């Protein structure tokens, strides 16, 4: 039963998990980002295996290419090299309980998958027949500009808001932390006017 699909799946799944594990284990954030990109690439392979060609491409281009660069950019900006003192690691009991918690969660999810009824799932697998335009640019575009036009537009508004928000948040420095300095001025304003009014 071992065919090419299975090998590709096994390798990319392992790489994806490996990248994820390595990501959280690094002290240096730059290394974390690189492992994350590795995991993303492996996941893109899984996407393609599932027939989502377009999304696989998007994942690499947008996610690995743009968003992760943004992360790197911020890390460089803040000049973080992993020498950052992150304090105590916390009690091992605490860490262990967290692992346990997540493990339990994963087991639960596995049980959910096991007990859930998926048509074709157990029998067909990924080699089953699908329409020719499944996962293609056209297919996704038809959905986005047809059935999901409204959420799509909302997403664009969300992005716009995010841009504005990011600019406001990160760009505060330009205004020069002035609220404290501005306060007495604004408080004395009405006071003096009121005094004149009397």
């Amino acid at each position, binding site marked *: 039963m071992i065919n090419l699909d299975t090998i590709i799946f096994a390798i990319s799944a392992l790489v994806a998990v490996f990248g994820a594990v390595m990501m959280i284990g690094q002290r240096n954030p730059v290394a974390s980002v690189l492992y994350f990109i590795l995991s993303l690439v492996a996941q893109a392979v899984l996407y393609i295996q599932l027939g989502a060609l377009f999304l696989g491409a998007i994942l690499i281009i947008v996610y690995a290419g743009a968003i992760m660069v943004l992360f790197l950019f911020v890390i460089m900006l803040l000049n973080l090299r992993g020498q950052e003192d992150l304090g105590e690691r916390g009690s091992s009991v605490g860490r262990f309980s967290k692992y346990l918690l997540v493990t339990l969660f994963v087991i639960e999810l596995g049980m959910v998958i096991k007990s859930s009824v998926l048509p074709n799932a157990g029998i067909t697998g990924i080699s089953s027949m699908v329409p020719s335009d499944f996962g293609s640019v056209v297919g996704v575009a038809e959905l986005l500009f047809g059935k999901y036009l409204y959420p799509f537009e909302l997403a664009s508004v969300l992005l716009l808001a995010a841009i504005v928000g990011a600019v406001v948040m990160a760009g505060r420095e330009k205004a020069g932390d002035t609220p404290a300095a501005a306060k007495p001025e604004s408080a004395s*304003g*009405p*006071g003096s*006017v*009121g005094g004149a*009014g*009397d």
Partner: protein
Amino acid sequence: MMENEILTLVTFFPTIGVLLLLLVPGDRHDSLRSVSLIIAFITMLFSFLLWAMFDPVANGMQFEVNVPWITSLGISYHVGIDGISLLLILLTTILSVLCILSAWRSIATGVKGFLISILLLETGMIGVFCALDLFLFYVFWEVMLIPMYFLIGVWGGPRKVYAAIKFVLFTMFGSLLMLVAILFMLFEYQKYSGEYSFDLLKIMQMPFAYHAQLWLFAAFGLAFAIKVPLWPFHTWLPDAHVEAPTAASVILAGVLLKMGTYGFIRICLPMFPEATVTFLPYICVLSLIAIIYGALVAMVQKDVKSLVAFSSVSHMGFIMLGMFALNTQGMEGAVLQMINHGISTGALFLIVGMLYERRHTRLIAEFGGIAKVMPFYAAVFMIVTLSSIGLPLTNGFVGEFLILIGVFKFNTVYGIVAASGVVLSACYMLWMFQRVVFGKVTKSENEKLKDVSWRERMVLIPLVVLIFWIGIYPKPFLDRIEPAVKQVLERVSRAKTVEAERRFQIETELPAREAGSVGATGHVAGGENLCWK
């Protein structure tokens, strides 16, 4: 045509004022004050119109308006007034004007918020007095709470936060129980008539089972007793009064305390007449304790404001007692005394406030010899003091006399104990008056105090005029109170006979106790709500 709208107009005109005030910049203090003064003044004129259009001989509610509001729950905007509400509304509008006038200079920070709070409060108070829908009543009741919280908490004295929170917690505690009771009544009414309604007049037609009445009376009664405040729920009052700014004290004492007694007379007595008869002795005893206790504690206070606050406890005890005497004289006296207490105690707080504005202290020991430096002030203070201790030809006497004569008829011992409160009130008021106003000027700060200004005279003179008007010719007031009181009494007296029969039945059928009590509640409740036994 005007008849239908005037009540709504009086109620919401101050709210219009709030909107206007929002348009005025916050630093224009004098225009803010003028605008709110004009608004309050016009509201007062409307209420005078209400008085003029009111038919003193008609029974029942007048100027009634009933517009569906939230139909699915049977909530409607149902307002209307009788003589009792009319007088309380007048009191509210007059005191509001005087409050704004009195706070002209003393409130210098946050003027806008202060005035908005006062006007919102006015809407809330008038709303409570004319609401005939329990939901509406509850909404206005809570609307009152918030501005008052801010008035005490923002513009108050050194312990303002403690006082404000205490005030809110006490009131909230009561009003939540009231909410539960209101909801219970809603569902009971639904069971009874098949439709949801919060309408006071409709629910009043429905007989509640005796045991249901007990619980409902207890819930409403607690809410109102806290507001009155009846001993031992009174401890929020001195704190709130001492910390509150003058204007808030005036409204608190003048109108807010009346909410409690008004609630009793509008809801508890007519709706739960059988329970009223049952609770009667307890409330009377608490009232008597309040009368004596308030007077005694007032006597040893060092702060003028807390003295007046405890005197309020004592006076409100009189009002409660008069109301629960359940006869014409007592109840009419109680209603009139509600107005009188508003005028006299309001005036007392204004007077104390004027002194506070000048000296920034209210401790009795800090004064002395004020009559020498402020003769006009001393004269008005004297008049108000006399009104507070119920000297004939001032308003206090008429109310107190009616209450006492009513209570005496109802129960001789109660009457005698209550009358001794009259002696005590003379003790504490005159002692305080002597220490503040008489004697030599001992403190150098007091030597240069200015007598009252024209603005302050305009605040005090209307109250003095009212004091003498009600004292000398109370007939217009009593005439308007009488029909309303008669109606309440009619309902309660029916219950009294029912209660007597119930007792009789229980006593006569003591061997067959079970059957007796079932029969008794049965003919009250129409056999419907027997589950409440």
